[in-house]
């Protein structure tokens, strides 16, 4: 073996040793993250959710039009067709303007493309002004058509508003309510669940019965009652907040049960006993041994709880109990798809549904991935 080969081998061994050392020094969280990145479905879901949230965060930029901007001559149009060849020659992506006509037999509205002038699609066009996070002003949109032409990739609604823009801007509500809601549920569940598990006995019995009662109430009538309690004159943002609170006041029960169960099982772990024998105080044991011990399970429960909240918000808004115009969420958009005539004539009204399904599935798969990663026996 030559010197160089030997050196190479040594380097390789050194590298392997370092890698091993890194594994030994890894905390449980690092190990979990490592396992999670090996879970294919979770990785894909994480990527999809990442895209969703980035798009929602910079909604004003990604949406070609504003939430309320409408065009009376573009009511109920189908998704805009994108062309590449104008009069038989390559022109690049462009759209035509539409003109509305009535079918002479059925009186149904028909949109005809005006094929005389092409309007190029462009990136980073100037458009309506917006504020990112309500702070940073801007008026550049990711894409748009030149001139006065409209590009509506998902069609428009009955007022001539662009569906794509409304889905993107609606996601700002639909994807954040669950987070705010689960956060409140998380705090409630953690506190009530710990009390239940730690004190046991009568406290535990009372809390468990309350949870059972809450769980046995049918959710839709309860939502109706609670949203009827919201005064009608308050602003949209306040209403948004209250809806979040309503959802989370009903959503903590599952989490409280998980926390209680974990508390009870971990109370009897040998290392907790060892800490007690060493003279560590009860409070310190809870904070340093018990809560970190089930934090990973809590995160799993949380991730799996978010889709429930998304669906909750969507169904409340769909029923007209939750968010209402002018604020927009996916549920509000789906409200337009409530009657059969709408779905039959304008099937693109159902597009928001796909986004609900994709978001819910992605959260579920991600939760599955985290659960597998948190399981030390796998």
């Amino acid at each position: 073996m030559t010197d160089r080969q030997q050196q190479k081998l040594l380097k390789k061994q050194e590298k392997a040793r370092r890698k091993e050392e890194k594994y030994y020094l890894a905390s449980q969280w690092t190990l979990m993250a490592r396992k999670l990145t090996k879970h294919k479905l979770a990785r894909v879901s994480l990527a999809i959710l990442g895209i969703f949230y980035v798009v929602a965060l910079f909604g004003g930029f990604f949406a070609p039009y504003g939430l309320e901007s409408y065009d009376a001559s573009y009511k109920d149009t189908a998704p805009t067709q994108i062309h590449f060849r104008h009069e038989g020659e390559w022109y690049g992506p462009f759209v035509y303007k539409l003109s509305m006509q009535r079918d002479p037999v059925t009186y149904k509205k028909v949109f005809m493309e005006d094929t005389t002038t092409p309007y190029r699609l462009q990136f980073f066009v100037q458009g309506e002004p917006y504020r990112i996070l309500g702070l940073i002003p801007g008026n550049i949109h990711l894409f748009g058509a030149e001139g006065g032409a409209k590009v509506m990739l998902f069609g428009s609604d009955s007022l001539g508003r662009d569906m794509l823009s409304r889905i993107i801007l609606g996601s700002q509500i639909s994807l954040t309510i669950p987070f705010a809601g689960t956060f409140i549920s998380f705090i409630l569940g953690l506190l009530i669940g710990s009390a239940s598990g730690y004190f046991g006995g009568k406290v535990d019995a009372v809390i468990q019965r309350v949870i059972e009662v809450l769980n046995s109430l049918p959710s839709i009538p309860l939502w109706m009652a609670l949203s009827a309690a919201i005064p009608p004159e308050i602003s949209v943002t306040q209403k948004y907040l209250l809806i979040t609170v309503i959802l989370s006041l009903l959503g903590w029960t599952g989490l409280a049960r998980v926390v209680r169960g974990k508390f009870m099982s971990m109370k009897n772990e040998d290392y907790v006993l060892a800490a007690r024998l060493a003279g560590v105080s009860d409070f310190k044991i809870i904070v340093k041994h018990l809560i970190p011990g089930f934090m990973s399970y809590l995160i799993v429960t949380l991730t799996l709880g978010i889709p429930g909240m998304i669906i909750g918000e969507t169904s409340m808004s769909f029923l007209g109990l939750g968010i209402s115009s002018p604020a927009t969420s996916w549920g509000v958009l789906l409200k337009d798809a409530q009657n059969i005539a709408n779905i039959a004539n304008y099937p693109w009204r159902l597009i928001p549904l796909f986004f609900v399904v994709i978001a819910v599935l992605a959260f579920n798969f991600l939760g599955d991935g985290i659960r597998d990663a948190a399981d030390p026996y796998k």
Partner: protein
Amino acid sequence: MAESMHEDLILDVQNISKVFVSKGVSVKAVTDISFQVRRGETIGIVGESGCGKTTLGRCIVRAIEASAGKVLYRTQKGEVVNFLSVDAKQMKGIRREIQMIFQDPYSSLDPRMTVIDIIGEPIKANYPKMPKAEREQMVIDMAARVGLNTTYLKRYPHAFSGGQRQRIGIARALILRPRLIVCDEAVSALDVSIQAQIINLLKDLQKEMQLTYLFISHDLSVVEHISDRVGVMYLGKMVEFADTESLFSHPLHPYTEALLSAVPVADPEVHMERIRLKGEIPNPANPPKGCYFHERCAYCTEMCREKPPLLRQCNGHMVACHRAEELKLKGFEYSDP
């Protein structure tokens, strides 16, 4: 303090009982157990699974509260206190003198803490003002003493083998300089070769630090190797208590005889006649009348079925058997070294 005991003694366990009540059914896990521990000796407690040895150990360290009885303990300062009834304030000083080593080296270490934090936790709890550097130096010294490689202390428990983890557990128990250690099946979860290492380590530490051990195990050969005196438990009661050699060579209780006959001998020439006990261990929620062992005992008489035997002195043993004097029981045959 009104309590007193003989100067040599460090621990005097008096009539300890533990009753678990669950859904109206009460189970006597430990019934009326008494024994004394001299300073610096090792007491072995043996018995089959479910006989109450672990409960006994946990009652003594107050991991669970005993239902009745006293545990007199001589503190470092020489006071004699009933460890089971000291108040929280007194407890703070004494707690660190009585520590425990656990059976399962996997569940006894918090997987979310580094080894240096695990071993240092008792110091942190008892001397919160000690600077971090000093604490870590103490941990490193102790880790070296129990034979851990001190360069690995920043690692998490998952990076260590069972034997190494048990050494970590031992280091944690010893870091506060305790005087009495309850070893609850401390080597049962380890490979035989590692068991020997850990037992030798425990013996060395005992000499160095003047420790007293209460060694709870189901493994007779381990107990025989490490203990000065041995207590045999059956269904929550102490049935025999004697010096190790005497107990192993001349058992006086039929249950001890049966246990000894089950010890495998590493010599193909020796053929031990194994005494097979009839039946199952009785349900402790509903123990039999008379002697708890009579249903399975080959030497049972009418008296055994009616009257429970008391633990009494006989040929230098403490034994709870009506027929201890008349029976000629077979002990453990030591093969020539």
